[in-house]
């Protein structure tokens, strides 16, 4: 009896620790956000997960601060849709966009070429458009200069004679209505499926330089084009639309941050192709922080002084750890509370069980980015959609292990419990769940460890965490930056694993450990 009591106390303590830990993790970011959010409206700037967009985002933040307007940057969000949805859901105030993307992708009205026409089309949606910033970052196809010379290709039309070439296209370019589909149709290109693959933009560069790929898609302001001496193929049929950079913002920003909104006009026409490519190059090649590059531009071109607040390595690490732990802790706790009862129900009723197991299995197969995009309209950007996605992914291992733990109990022991005259609930609590504890716990452990890894994707929707440096590192092809996210994430996974080993000792009855010996 005393032994059982010590065990119960240890288990309670362990649960309490987890609970406290989650509370602290959850409370920390809220507190820091409160500090920033005083009377003035904080302008919420978003950016896409490529350098140019991040630089423009920092430029907007700097511009706001120079006009005494507080601003926060949700950087490197996972895709155009995520930003568009966040802006419309009032999760963001402003982000840099391109006319071609707006017309073709977001409004599905490719005939809208003129920025003024676009602005009119956006008005009913409560959105405003700035005048073009000056550069046209359109898509381009290209290859290394040596390869271009050897093959004697100059135009996209020339590709028709080279079916042997290996193409590496970004997923976005490949899928977009104004991307590969129109190019293929307009130029009559037919590449076999094994000649064409989709991959990350930065990885495509690496593949091109390594000679693994022949042709990849670019943005025309990519600094790598000049740096590596790459050849762009002429769009001889004029297929690619204009992608003039503009600032897309909510109409109510004019009321919320009037000084900042007025100041936006000072950026108009200030960034031509060369200027933008140079700024991109300073980040990507010279490894200058985006904020510093943006600040020096504001200083040199507009005469605006912006104070740079560079967080220390320790504070950044601490903030990311708190963000990451919040994602993992909250989603895991919720999953435990939902999945264990689901597993119990599944074990009790075979039919229901099959349905439940099938459903949580299906959830598992939804690609994480798709799930995140779907979750933005109802939940906004930040931690919420990431936590819900992680919660959903955590269900399967826990439901399955609970179900397995309960259904593999020796039927003679289940009968012995029933014969004692204990009601079903008491049997579950006193006999069945304790006997299933090792299995249940191993499911929770699996979910926790997987969660630590999957939570890095939270950075795609602005949830922060150790995914942030990984995303930036991939964008900048900067291994040390990737490691700044990957190493703490891996260490955290090990820590979680260790924590569960301790928890196992506290929660799994000693009698069960004896048996397994």
């Amino acid at each position, binding site marked *: 009896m005393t032994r*059982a009591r010590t065990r119960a106390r240890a288990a309670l303590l362990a649960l309490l620790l987890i609970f406290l830990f989650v509370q602290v993790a959850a409370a920390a970011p809220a507190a820091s956000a409160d500090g920033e959010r005083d009377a003035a409206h904080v302008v919420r700037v978003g950016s896409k997960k490529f350098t140019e967009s991040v630089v423009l985002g920092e430029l907007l933040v700097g511009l706001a601060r120079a006009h005494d307007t507080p601003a926060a940057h949700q950087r490197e969000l996972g895709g155009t849709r995520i930003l568009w949805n966040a802006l419309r859901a009032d999760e963001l105030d402003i982000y840099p966009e391109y006319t071609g993307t707006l017309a073709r992708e977001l409004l599905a009205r490719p005939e809208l070429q003129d920025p003024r026409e676009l602005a009119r089309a956006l008005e009913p949606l409560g959105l405003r458009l700035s005048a073009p910033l000056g550069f046209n970052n359109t898509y381009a196809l290209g290859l290394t200069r040596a390869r271009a010379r050897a093959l004697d290709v100059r135009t996209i039309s020339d590709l028709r004679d080279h079916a042997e070439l290996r193409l590496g296209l970004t997923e976005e370019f490949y899928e977009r209505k104004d991307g590969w589909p129109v190019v293929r149709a307009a130029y009559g290109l037919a590449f076999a499926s094994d000649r064409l693959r989709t991959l990350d933009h930065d990885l495509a560069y690496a593949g091109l330089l390594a000679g693994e790929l022949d042709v990849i898609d670019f943005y025309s302001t990519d600094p790598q084009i000049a740096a590596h001496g790459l050849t762009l193929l002429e769009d001889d049929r004029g297929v690619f639309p204009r992608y003039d950079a503009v600032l897309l913002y909510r109409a109510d920003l004019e009321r919320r941050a009037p000084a900042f909104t007025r100041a936006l006009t000072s950026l108009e026409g200030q960034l031509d192709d060369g200027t933008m490519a140079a700024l991109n190059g300073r980040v990507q090649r010279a490894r200058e922080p985006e904020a510093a590059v943006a600040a020096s531009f504001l200083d040199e071109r507009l005469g605006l002084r912006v104070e740079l607040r560079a967080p220390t390595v320790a504070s950044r690490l601490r903030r990311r750890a708190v963000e990451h732990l919040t994602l993992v802790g909250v989603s895991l706790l919720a999953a435990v509370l939902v999945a264990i009862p689901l597993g119990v129900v599944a074990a009790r009723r075979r039919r229901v069980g099959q349905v439940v197991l099938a459903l949580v299995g299906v959830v598992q197969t939804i690609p994480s980015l798709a799930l995140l995009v779907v979750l933005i309209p109802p939940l906004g950007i930040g931690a919420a959609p990431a936590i819900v996605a992680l919660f959903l992914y955590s269900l399967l291992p826990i439901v399955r292990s609970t179900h397995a733990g309960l259904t593999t109990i020796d039927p003679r022991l289940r009968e012995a419990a029933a014969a004692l005259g204990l009601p079903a609930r008491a049997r579950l609590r006193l*006999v069945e769940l304790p006997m299933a504890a090792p299995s249940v716990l191993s499911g929770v452990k699996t979910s926790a460890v997987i969660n630590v890894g999957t939570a890095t994707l939270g950075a795609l929707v602005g949830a922060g965490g150790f995914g942030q440096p990984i995303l930036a590192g991939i964008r900048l092809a900067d291994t040390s930056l990737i490691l700044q996210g990957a190493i703490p994430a891996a260490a955290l996974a090990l820590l979680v694993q260790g924590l569960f080993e301790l928890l196992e000792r506290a929660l799994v009855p000693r009698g069960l450990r004896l*048996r397994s010996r």
Partner: protein
Amino acid sequence: MFELRGVEMLHGETRVLAGVDLVTRRGRTTALIGPSGSGKSTILRLMLGLWGPDRGRVLFDGAPVERSGPAALALRRRVGYVIQEGGLFPHLTARDNVTLVARWRGDDDDAIERRLLELAALARLPVELLGRFPAELSGGQRQRVGLMRALMLDPDALLLDEPLGALDPLIRAELQLDLRDIFRSLAKTVVLVTHDLAEAAYFAEHIVLLRGGAIVQQGALADFIARPRSDFVARFVSAQRTVALSPPRAPEAP
């Protein structure tokens, strides 16, 4: 006292019990015996209300045995049930196995402890073994703990399904002796399943022989030997008679 009237029981298509009529005697031991698969365990499960008959009635002290609800749970607490190896829960110590239901009911701690020590003495289980987990006990010790658990709430009846089946001969003989003493001293209604006629005779005057889900003969051992009701009974008796049909000799008590 248990009463089965015209009980039929199906498992899917197969008929497991066919028209069983059986009345056990109050305060006495009834032994169910028969080849494996003849329906002995099924009868115990019906008596406990773990299963329900497809036809016929199962009564305990004149009231129908329920399968669910408060009445069913109350009945199960009035009937102790012991299976092979004791059916002990591996995550609980011997002490916690025995006192599980009493603690759940919220019985007084001192009363529980008193009863536990009383039962340990009765079942001749050394008190220092009470803190051990089932995995740390021998087969015979587990069986004693299983018996203590079944007796904990001082039930009116005791059902034992081949309680000695898994034990080696020496331990088995020792436990047989102890069990019979316990049954006699407690004067409870006992139904005991065995496949050994000698063991049945050792425990019970009322022996019930089953075959294929039906009772082929019931009565005292002498009837089975002197007046076998069928060829099968005669063969069953003579097959077991090659081994001495007398109570086993017990070793000296430790």
